[in-house]
């Protein structure tokens, strides 16, 4: 809300610089966001919170200044001389949403341009001048906060006003020339036969005051805030009037605002004024709010005395009665926001000064709330990923539904159970994510386009699956992408990036003490967007928790990515967290020495190392402590369909020193078993 300091000074005396006034208002809760100087006057832009409809006017802000400075307020001088004894014909039908309607007619006005001072004031407050009659209604709205409307009386059928809902009207042309589609429940102002204005929002094109208008009917009414808001929202039409009505106008000011406008119109445009019609079917009854001294002091944590409180109540026009150890407050009709004791307490605090409330530390009883420890584990997981070389990204939760097609996600996949946003910012952001992968691919594209060739990124966020309940299933997932150039620098060992990202998962599981995990291949690729022969499922205790692999070449080219790109996904992080052992059990350190034997075998190229390890562990020997792969070789001296694999097996017993004989026996047994199960040939 813009307000001129010059105009404020018509109602309240103060000797403050614009900066000092801005500070005063800001510290009173009316934040001054900007100010500008126009023709020697300063216009402040004041942010008015929705509870303070009473401050949406020059007079309202002047009232605040008066209360804060403790100086009196001057009300505008209003005197109307009635020239006619007749009065407008007004009928309110829907009284529950129009509690009061007051009106006067001014006959024989000369519609024309407003004087310079009026035009300047309107423009300084962000309004356009139209003609002297319309300008006066706007002027009074700015000054007193009450929106008014002027009709061309001769364009009202039957020269009367009826206030009732739209019903079957259907369409209506507002004075901005737009045709509006009406709901049945919208409150309208009618003449004898048709609607002439949308109550509290905007007048109609067919009844507006024009240069040829001679007789004017002025409206000053109280419309129900909820009704006006619904209408304004449904029409997508917010006006200075609707903005004020939906926040609540002062029902007791209606006649004064009407008379202020009447007098000004008569002064600027001439004319003969009729008597007043004031239909007031639902009179205002102020609430009574009780508040105790103890509650004021207790809530604010201050030692304020009773007389200081009384002084504050007086300054704010809050009528009070002493009652017991407290007060019963009757707020003025313009302070509809004061309904409970805490509302009064806020007023006391405001004028006492928030800044005078001393800092204290609460004396509270400690209490532990169960079931909120995942955030700690999630922090550990993020830290472990960071130590594995991955940087955390955070993307919006929005998904472009076409991204699922790009990743070849099948139609019956869970990830197709999308949650749709009714009012997205863009079509590309119209759903909520069911997978983190498209976001990471986009992050890779952005970074590659900015010249970065090697990076490792991860995200840990919720995804959302639609289900047969009001709220979707929110699942915490983690995904990571690892990009490295196809030709790494000379001193870096050449290997597939897949093993970097797999190593990160293994490191993470080891850090979390998760046991019983494996990486499993099957005939069906784990993800449609992964390279089918360079990917696998991540399995913990027999349950698939995620997938890891190289990005499918077709996805790489679709996204126009370059280099060696690997991705992993953990589909349900909370399931992973559940797999973390609740406690660590110490195992006795070994007391006897180990014996190591190397083994070097030739096997078919397609035998996975995990299978060989599986064969060895299937022997279930208590003295095999570990099996460590140390070489894989193909090439010279090896038949083309074979590979050479070498392991070190460490043997150790927990209760004795092993003899060479028993180690040799077991070692031969291992070799035999490998020979029988996977056709391994022992190498030299």
């Amino acid at each position, binding site marked *: 809300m813009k307000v001129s300091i010059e105009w404020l000074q018509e109602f309240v005396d103060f000797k403050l610089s614009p900066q000092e006034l801005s500070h005063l208002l800001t*510290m*009173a809760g009316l*934040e001054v966001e900007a100010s500008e100087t126009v023709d020697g006057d300063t216009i402040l832009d004041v942010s008015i919170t*929705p*509870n303070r409809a009473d401050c949406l006017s020059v007079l309202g802000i002047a009232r605040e200044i008066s209360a804060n400075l403790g100086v009196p307020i001057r009300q505008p001088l209003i005197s109307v001389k009635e020239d006619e004894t007749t009065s407008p014909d007004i009928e309110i039908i829907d009284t529950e949403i129009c509690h009061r309607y007051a009106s006067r007619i001014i006959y024989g006005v000369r519609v024309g341009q407003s004087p310079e001072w009026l035009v300047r004031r309107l423009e300084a407050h962000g309004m356009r001048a139209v003609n002297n009659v319309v300008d006066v209604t706007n002027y009074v709205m700015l000054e007193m906060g009450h929106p008014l409307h002027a009709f061309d009386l001769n364009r009202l059928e039957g020269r009367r006003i009826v206030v009732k809902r739209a019903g079957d009207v259907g369409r209506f042309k507002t004075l901005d020339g737009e045709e509006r589609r009406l709901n049945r429940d919208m409150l309208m102002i009618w003449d004898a036969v048709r609607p002439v204005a949308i109550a509290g929002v905007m007048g109609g094109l067919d009844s507006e005051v024009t240069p040829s208008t001679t007789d004017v009917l002025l409206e000053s009414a109280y419309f129900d*805030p*909820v009704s006006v*808001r619904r209408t304004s929202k449904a029409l997508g039409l917010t006006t200075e009037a609707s903005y004020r009505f939906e926040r609540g106008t002062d029902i007791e000011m209606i006649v004064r605002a009407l008379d202020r406008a009447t007098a000004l119109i008569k002064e600027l445009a001439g004319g003969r004024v009729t008597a007043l019609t004031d239909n007031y079917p639902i009179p205002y009854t102020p609430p009574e709010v009780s508040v105790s001294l103890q509650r004021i002091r*207790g*809530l*604010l*944590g*201050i030692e304020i005395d009773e007389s200081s409180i009384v002084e504050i109540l007086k300054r704010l026009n809050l009528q009070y009665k002493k009652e017991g150890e407290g007060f019963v407050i009757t707020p003025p009709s313009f302070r509809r926001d004061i309904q*409970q004791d*805490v509302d009064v*307490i*806020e007023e006391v*605090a*405001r004028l006492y000064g*928030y*800044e005078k*409330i001393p800092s*204290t*530390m*609460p*004396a*509270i*009883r400690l*209490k*532990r*709330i169960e079931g*909120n420890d995942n*955030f700690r584990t999630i922090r550990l997981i*993020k*830290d472990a990923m*960071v*130590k594995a*070389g991955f*940087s*955390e990204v*955070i*993307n*919006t*939760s929005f998904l472009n539904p076409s991204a699922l097609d790009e990743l070849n996600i099948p139609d019956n996949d869970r990830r197709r159970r999308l*949650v*749709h*946003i*009714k*009012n997205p910012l863009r079509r590309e*952001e119209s759903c*909520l994510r069911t997978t983190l992968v498209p976001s990471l691919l986009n992050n890779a594209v*952005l970074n590659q386009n900015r010249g*970065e060739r090697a*990076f*490792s990124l*991860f995200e840990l966020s919720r995804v959302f699956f639609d289900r047969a309940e*009001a*709220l979707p299933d*929110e699942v915490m997932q983690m995904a990571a992408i690892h990009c490295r150039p196809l030709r790494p620098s000379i*001193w870096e060992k050449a290997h597939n990036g897949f093993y970097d990202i797999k190593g990160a998962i293994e490191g993470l599981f080891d850090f979390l003490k998760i046991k019983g995990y494996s990486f499993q291949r099957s005939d069906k690729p784990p993800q449609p967007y992964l390279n089918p022969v360079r990917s696998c499922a991540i399995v913990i205790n027999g349950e698939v928790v995620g997938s890891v692999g190289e990005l499918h070449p077709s996805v790489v080219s679709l996204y126009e990515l370059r280099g060696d790109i690997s991705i992993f996904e953990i589909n349900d992080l909370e399931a992973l967290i559940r797999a973390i052992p609740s406690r660590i059990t110490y195992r006795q350190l070994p007391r006897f020495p180990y014996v190591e034997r190397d083994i070097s075998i030739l096997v078919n190229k397609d035998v996975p190392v995990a299978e060989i390890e599986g064969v060895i562990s299937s022997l279930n020997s208590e003295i095999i402590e570990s099996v460590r792969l140390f070489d894989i070789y193909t090439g010279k001296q090896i038949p083309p369909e074979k590979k050479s694999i070498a392991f070190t097996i460490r043997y150790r017993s927990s209760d004795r020193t092993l003899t060479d004989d028993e180690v040799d026996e077991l070692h031969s047994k291992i070799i035999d078993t490998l020979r029988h199960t996977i056709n391994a040939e022992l190498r030299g």
Partner: protein
Amino acid sequence: MIEELRSIASLAEEEIQSTETLNALTSVKAKYLGKKGLITERIRSLRSLPPEKRPEYGRLLNQIKNRIEELLKEREGYLKEADLDRRLKAESFDVTLPGFCIPFGHLHPATRMLNEIIDIFVSLGFSVMEGPEVELDYYNFEALNIPKDHPARDMQDTFYISDDVVLRTHTSPVQVRVMEKHTPPLSVVAPGKVYRCDADISHIPMFHQIEGFMVDEHITMGDLRGVLEVFAHEVFGPQTAIRFRPSYFPFTEPSAEVDISCVLCNGSGCRVCKNSGWVEVLGAGMINPRVFEMAGYEPGRYTGFAFGMGVERITMLKYGISDIRLFLENDKRFLEQF
């Protein structure tokens, strides 16, 4: 004879000092002190001297032997050290080549900030609770005293899933969810993502908030100030001042906007604080009795405070980040700075 002895001594000294290798030193040692060494031989022939000459000659001989041994030892130490030096020089490599260890990654600055904030409140005894990001209109608005058709709804541009379901616009619904399940005393912080239907140079449609609230029988607005002062001092340093301004949130009454003295200019006025010396960091207030009523608490029994802050905003102030859109861009060069 004595003369001869002296010349042997000086010759030995000269030879030892000019020896360049440990092998050569061993030969020198043998020449003088070996079985047939010049000194050894003379010690052996001592017996053949006339008895009156023996003491003087013997003493001198002994002195010379000791002196040679001392010199040999000294030279040996020197040569060993020189030897090691030579060997090390030959083994040097280029320490400026990059290391092989995988460089650590980086936490997103919002996470980093959030962790810091959570730690401060946990150290004060707060618990951490979370709530859904897709939320019922009831929890996001109505139970927080923001009925449908209330102008306060304009304070937050809302993404709707349906008429009754929204993307939460703030973390405040966690207040109600926690209060429905737990009775006071309560000290809780609720971090998480929130959504606003708003995107321009200074707004992003998803950001992080952290909500805090404390409810018991005698919580005051002074306590709110005390706790927020601890927060401001921990995050921005002990010189930071805080300022409470009256404001409006439907779920708190009295409500306050909380400013801190500008972190850039320390309150003297600059571009960041628009010359006011203060920057807004969070909204706070005393929990509205209507919220307690919605949660089913006995009327009038409890008081409490609540506050909510935008994590990105705090992060921007703390690290001097000028563009909020960087938080969702995930440029590696941005992430690596934190």
